[in-house]
């Protein structure tokens, strides 16, 4: 009987650990979908990063995406409120020049939405990391404004 309890507990443990992980991806994107408004969804990236360890570099993740001249892109992210990290987006062009970041350093303030009317077509790099290297979960979204 005792064995059954242990087995059941393990099943629940696995089931719930899976649920907490999955909340970081699809459900968060579905919530974030509402922010697209009158733009057309193009791409999303789930971001899940650990807390920065002492002496280690800041955990971050990058993705490349082509942006086309003449199009306006709506770029934003949504954070999972259960974790402390607030995501910062930075966008670089193909020459690695920083175009924009979603964090205003002087005011320690996050920008909720970036509108980017592109004049220089190319493959841009979208990097995501969390403020102060906190552990975090977020989803980054790129849509095309109509």
């Amino acid at each position, binding site marked *: 009987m005792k064995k059954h309890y242990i087995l059941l507990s393990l099943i629940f443990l696995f089931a719930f650990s899976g649920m907490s992980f999955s909340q970081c*991806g*699809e459900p968060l*994107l579905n919530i974030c*979908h509402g922010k*697209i408004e009158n733009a*057309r*969804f*193009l*791409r*999303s*990236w*789930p971001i899940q990063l650990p807390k920065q360890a002492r002496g280690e570099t800041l955990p971050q*993740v*990058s*993705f*490349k*995406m*082509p942006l*086309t*001249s*003449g*199009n306006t892109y709506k770029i934003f992210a949504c954070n999972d409120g259960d974790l402390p990290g607030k995501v910062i987006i930075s966008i670089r*062009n*193909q*020459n690695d*020049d920083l*175009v*924009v970041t*979603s964090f205003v350093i002087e005011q320690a303030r996050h*920008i*909720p*939405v*970036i*509108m*980017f*009317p*592109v*004049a*220089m*077509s*190319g*493959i841009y790099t979208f990097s995501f990391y969390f403020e102060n290297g906190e552990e975090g979960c977020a989803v980054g979204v790129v849509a*095309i404004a109509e």
Partner: protein
Amino acid sequence: MKKKTTLPLILALVAGLIISGCQQNKRQEATDLLYDSKKEGELFLHMDMVKEMISSVSNPVEMSSLLQKAGVIYSQDLLNPAGNIDDYNTNFQRALNLGVYGTNLVYMNIYDRTLSTLRYLSNVRQLAADLRIEQFFDYETLNRLSESSRNIDSVLFITNTGFDNMSRYLIEQDRSNIAILISTGTWIESLYIATHVQTIPGNRDYINMRIGEQKKVLDNLLLLLYAYREEPDFNWLFEDLMDLKKIFEDVKISYVYAEPTMQELNGVLIVIDNSMSEVIISDNTIEKIANKVAEIRTRVIG
């Protein structure tokens, strides 16, 4: 006594599941071994690199939206006929054509041909099932939403996120080769449609420039395919795309970078892009690209 009744019940359930599984999968098993193509000791791309690079392949929503914006008329003749699905017997063909049919589906949706999408949706579902990745599409919802053109954005959202999740899953499961083939199929089909649509000369120039910009995308795609170039089937695809790259060498793209300026309005940061890019592409180069991509696509769709 209890054990005696439980065992036959379990056996009956297992048998039932096996039989129903067999009935659902009436399509022919793949004749290649693409799933097992990762061999010990061989050099393959790192998962993080594939994840970073694969999104550099243009999204079909963008190309179709661009064509619609440029006043291009919808043409069903440009799509891969839905009936071709029966000829795709290898995982290589199935992965490429999942990208092709996915692009067709997006193209049809952007042009409000929602009712005609059902067969293409079914093909996407079937090819995804053949590749054991059907769990990423909510077909029932897509079918229901496809009944009205008012739901286009939701359909595109579900389709796009389905393809994105599928790609991530494949990469994490060490099946990057399949993910790369799907993206390659998507890219080839988008470029084929863009090079073969009918439009007025003024709009043609705009579309041609967008085609020229695919030079950079092709470079990234070839970097991804390079790791698999020695594998059966991948070799002809890689070589054909290398030939296409040679044609793209005639496209000249210049960039002038100037620091952007920012303007904040109601919590929205607007980037004023002071940089610019210029694409120089001749009609002759466009024709060569169109012919070559048509040739590659014919090999892809069969």
